[in-house]
Structures are given as structure tokens and as C-alpha cells.
């Protein structure tokens, strides 16, 4: 498929922000991305005991499944979310989230730097100084996500 030209224009003062897609046959991936962009998934209901808070996906560092419960880890706070891990993976794969182990989905945008570990694994040091392990099985997905190889999703 031929690469599409991307033009970003600044709207004039007072004009509404709009995405205009000018193409003959819209690519399915592009439509999916745009649907997700405008979708309900940008905010996730998170539970802190009995209190419910809407968390922006941008604030989530990673999702982790612990004993059949799924938690969203933000900079300092941790919220329980009612979705299953695979649902979160599907919903947020276009938002820089990727599976990094069987029980974790990581927000790549929150990685400060990566460090090698023995046995092909990577240690991701996050922007809040927390450290998480990227399993060897998922390293090719990270590479693909960062445009370094053809494998992965």
C-alpha cells in the first residue's frame, strides 16, 4: 500500500479542531484508529475502594492482572478496573499500550529508558522510577512498535 501524505494544519482562531480524511479507500487500520481516538476508551472508570474516578488513558503507566483482578497503575495511585486484560489490550493497542508479559500491559509513552537484563529480557524504567520487566517474548512487539523491525503487531 502506498504511504499516505500526512498534513497537519493549525485551525484559525475560534475554529473547531477537525480531522479530514482525503483518500479514495480509507484503510481499515486508519478507521479503527480514528474510531478509537473518538471513543469512550479515552477515559477508564477506576475504583479506589468504593470511590469511582475517571482516569485518562494517558495517565496510566501500566495495567496489571493480579489474582483475577485488573489494576491500572498511575504515577502514584493504583485503581482497580473492571475490564479484562485482553479487552484493555484490544482497546488501547492504538494508544501506545502493548502487552509486556502475560499479566501486564505497558504504556510505552511512560518508559523513561530501557536496560538489558540477562536472557533477552528488558527492564523498563518508567517516568515515576518504577521498574517493570518486558518479557523476551514481547520484545519483538516493542521493536515493531518503535519501527525497528517488521515483526510483532
Amino acid at each position, binding site marked *: 500500500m502506498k504511504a499516505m501524505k500526512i498534513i497537519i494544519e493549525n485551525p484559525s482562531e475560534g475554529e473547531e479542531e477537525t480531522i479530514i480524511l482525503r483518500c479514495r479507500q480509507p484503510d481499515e487500520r486508519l478507521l479503527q484508529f480514528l474510531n478509537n481516538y473518538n471513543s469512550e476508551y479515552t477515559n477508564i472508570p477506576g475504583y479506589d475502594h468504593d470511590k469511582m474516578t475517571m482516569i485518562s488513558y494517558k495517565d496510566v503507566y501500566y495495567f496489571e492482572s493480579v489474582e483475577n483482578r485488573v489494576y491500572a497503575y498511575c504515577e502514584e495511585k493504583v485503581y482497580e478496573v473492571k475490564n479484562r486484560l485482553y479487552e484493555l489490550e484490544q482497546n488501547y493497542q492504538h494508544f501506545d499500550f502493548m502487552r509486556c*508479559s*502475560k*499479566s501486564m500491559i505497558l504504556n*510505552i*509513552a511512560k*518508559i523513561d*529508558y*530501557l*536496560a*538489558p*537484563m*540477562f*536472557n*533477552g*529480557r*528488558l527492564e523498563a524504567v518508567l517516568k515515576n522510577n518504577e521498574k517493570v520487566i518486558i*518479557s*523476551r*517474548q514481547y520484545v519483538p512487539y*516493542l*521493536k515493531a512498535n*518503535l*519501527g*525497528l523491525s517488521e515483526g510483532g503487531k
Partner: protein
Amino acid sequence: MKKFFDSFIHYFAYITTGALIVAAIFWKFVQKDMSVGILWEIILSGVLTAIPSALILNIEPETKKGIIICWVSHIISIYSISIALLFIFKWIEFSVSAILLSILAVSLIYLFTAELHFYSDKRHTALLNDALHQRYSKDNEK
């Protein structure tokens, strides 16, 4: 199965290269009358040590304890196989100094292989860090 075979080839290449380097040093400075048959023995030892490496190092334990158990069992299996082969192939005679020398030789091969892996991982990680910083540098500037 494919994953195991890929890992096997990978470890076989690394271990055999390490064993050849150690054998060349040994040949040069210690024992100068080694036969060509030693090359086949090195290849066989490469195969026999690559099998447990591909099996054990492909397990990805989630806990720290699991990681330690994996590494300890890998080290024990590699040392046991290597030292047994050293006696079977009659590369060394049964004595304390010979056992110590063989442990040193196996350690050199182990360190060589581990260092090669670590160097390669470090290089890949540097590329990933560059890509990561390029993609998110705009976010950091905000």
C-alpha cells in the same frame, strides 16, 4: 518446537565458539599434542550443552525466585555435562588440579557466552532507547 530449535542453534554457535577459543589457548600454552578428533568432541560438547541451555533459558519465570532457580539449574547442568565430557574425552586426568583447571575452562566459556549475549542485548537496547526518545521527545519538551 521452532522456538527450541532457534534457541538451540543460537546457543550451539555461541558455546562452540567459546569452546574453540579456550581449546586454542589450551593447545597453544598447555597441551601441544592434541588430535584433530578434538574438533568433533568440541562440536559434540557444544550440542550437549546447547540442549539444556535452550530448554532452561527459554523458561521465563515471573518471580525473582523462579529466575534464580532457572539460572542455578542452568549453571549446574552446564558444569556437570562439561566436566563429565572432559573426563569421558580424556581431555584431563582425575586430579584436584585438573578439576580446578576444568572448572576454570568451563567458567571462561560460560563468561564468554554470557558476555556476548549481554553485549548484543545492550546494542539492541541502545537502538530501542534511541527510537523511544525520538518518538516521545516532543512529549518531553511539553
